[in-house]
């Protein structure tokens, strides 16, 4: 083991680990182009980091392979007992392992820097690792066949261009052959299993192509058994690789317009119940479901006697199959949040929206009778969740006397007033109820 470890320590791949990490880190913290702040969306951004990492690894591994041939070492190596595939796999393995370490570190950086919420799309992130392995295998094979000093930079640049150009191709299935799709995922879409499998098949096929080229280089030059030309095993290996690529491309071309993503079916929405309330979130937000349920109970359980207070709550954009009565929506905010502050945000959503019956004002505003008590209503709703908050912190000065008066009234009268005030926020024919 020591002999191979020493070789690994001297590998060019190891020496560029730090600059490669810096490069990937810079790409990781660069402003995300299109992903929302869920971990699902971030998964696409993480996967796109392999566009930077994979070409660098491919170039380095090509350098390792071509260096051996240029120095004449390949001639010596060909006379030894170790299989060319084993020797190649070791070089490719060191390169790919380093690339994956950098990739995982950059992914952690994305998670730390942007604090996305929800669960990552692990299959998409794993696909990025497969891209790195595939390009390492191809880079080594090319370096072996073309041992020119310029091979390594050419491999790096060409693979970068391929990954960038192909992944931005307008034809959907072609763009997915690269195995990179920055816009793959989001809160409201999940990767299509078939498309992911198609990409994985193509990439596995490319790894196979790399190893076939390595075996072919050795086969071309070295002594072998008589009749040891195209054996059944080698023909089988070529057939398998061709089948993998053809199967992958076929899978990408068919089904769902070759799109990688599809909206998750309603049956996949994670839901939970607490105190008579049902809360549903996107699959990507599954890890936040407990928090959302606690917040919903905190916010709405005491208000259930009021009109229009939702009993079923859905994460923003997650529309139920048939919009039922007493349904509401909420948004999970960025970063870490307490159940109480999320509950405040939820009750805040009960009032404040301009009703469609409101009279539009020339300055761009709107007016309806209920808006005269809107501030007091919003302050009262928040006070139900955070009773310790002072009136001064809840509403602006003109509304503070009225809210104070309201909060001093008996609880039953407060609820009756809130019920009327809430109705007046949706029905423009109703007057604003007087403060008790």
């Amino acid at each position: 083991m020591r002999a191979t470890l020493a070789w690994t320590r001297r590998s060019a791949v190891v020496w560029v680990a730090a600059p490669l990490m810096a490069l990937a880190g810079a790409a990781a913290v660069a402003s995300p182009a299109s992903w929302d702040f869920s971990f699902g969306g971030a998964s696409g951004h993480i996967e796109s980091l392999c566009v930077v990492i994979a070409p660098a690894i491919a170039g380095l591994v090509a350098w390792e392979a071509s260096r051996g041939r240029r120095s004449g070492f390949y001639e010596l190596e060909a006379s030894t007992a170790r299989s060319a595939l084993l020797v190649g796999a070791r070089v490719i393995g060191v390169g790919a392992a380093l690339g994956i370490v950098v990739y995982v570190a950059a992914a952690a950086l994305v998670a730390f820097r942007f604090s996305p919420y929800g669960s990552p799309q692990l299959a998409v992130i794993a696909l990025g690792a497969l891209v790195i392995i595939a390009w390492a295998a191809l880079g080594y094979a090319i370096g072996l066949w073309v041992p020119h000093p310029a091979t390594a930079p050419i491999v790096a640049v060409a693979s970068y261009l391929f990954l960038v150009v192909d992944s931005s191709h307008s034809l959907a299935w072609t763009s997915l052959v690269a195995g990179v799709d920055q816009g793959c995922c989001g809160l409201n879409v999940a990767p299509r299993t078939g498309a992911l499998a198609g990409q994985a098949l193509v990439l596995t096929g490319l790894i196979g192509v790399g190893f076939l080229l390595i075996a072919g280089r050795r086969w071309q030059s070295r002594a072998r058994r008589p009749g040891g030309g195209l054996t059944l095993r080698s023909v089988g290996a070529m057939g398998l690789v061709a089948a993998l690529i053809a199967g992958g491309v076929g899978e990408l071309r068919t089904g769902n317009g070759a799109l990688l993503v599809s909206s998750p079916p309603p049956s996949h929405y994670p839901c939970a119940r607490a105190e008579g309330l049902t809360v549903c979130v996107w699959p990507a937000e599954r890890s936040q479901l407990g928090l959302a349920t606690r917040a919903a109970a905190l916010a709405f359980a005491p208000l259930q006697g009021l009109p229009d207070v939702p009993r079923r709550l859905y994460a923003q954009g997650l529309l139920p199959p048939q919009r039922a009565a007493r349904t509401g929506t909420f948004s999970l905010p960025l970063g870490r949040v307490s159940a109480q502050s999320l509950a405040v945000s939820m009750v805040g959503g009960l009032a404040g929206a301009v009703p469609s019956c409101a009279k539009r004002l020339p300055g761009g505003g709107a007016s309806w009778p209920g808006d005269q008590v809107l501030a007091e209503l919003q302050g009262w709703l928040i006070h139900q969740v955070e009773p310790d908050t002072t009136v001064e912190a809840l509403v602006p000065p003109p509304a503070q006397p009225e809210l104070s008066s309201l909060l001093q009234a008996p609880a039953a009268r407060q609820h009756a007033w809130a019920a009327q005030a809430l109705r007046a926020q949706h029905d423009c024919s109703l007057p604003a109820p007087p403060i008790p």
Partner: protein
Amino acid sequence: MKALSHSFGGLRRGRPVRALRQVSFGLHSGINALLGPNGAGKTTLLRLLATTLRVQHGQIEIGGVCFGADSTTSGSLGQYRQRLGYLPQRGGYLGHLTCEEYVAYVAWLRGMPGKVAPAAASTALAKVGLGDHRRTKLTALSGGMLRRAGIAQAIVNEPDLLILDEPTAGLDPEQRQGFYEVLGGLDPSTAVLLSTHLLEDVEALRAGVVVLAAGTVRFEGPSTELAELGGGPGLRAAYIKLVGSPPVQLPPA
């Protein structure tokens, strides 16, 4: 080896060049020198023996392994390669490695377990007088020391057959003397086949000789017989008689 023929080039590369024509000779334990002018086919022959070239015609039978184009192979090429030591003409040095790392890596390639390879490398380096340079990078070695590091990698597995392609090329007389001493210290049962175009090498090593010219064997036998063929004490006259041109002469020391 029997009736080995080999050609380079072909349809796309123009007229094929026949490097070897029906070459047959036997290898014996001890040192065997392959003597011949440039272009005689020495390197091609050694590469065929080292299994880095495919046998086109003829067969090689050595140490219970038989491989070739026309025959049924017996034995295992893998085992043959494990028992082989090879120093290619271009050396095949990995300059970014230290002597010990380089030799240990070749030991691993020869099939030695990775755990024992460093110890075997140290032993081999000590045998060639590079024991104090185990941690020196190959790029920091002189030409003669580099050649010794090459020999160390070739003997690290204590091979049954040691193939050395022009191992003394570029060495000064003192370095060549050191090289002869290294070869003299090898296990007598090891068959060494070295190619050279220097008569001095053959005389110093008192080796069995195969003279190769234009791809054919012109002489096979002990160096004393070769000298007798020329009618004098040295090999020069016999060489000229067999090859048709004078041998390469070293510049005066």
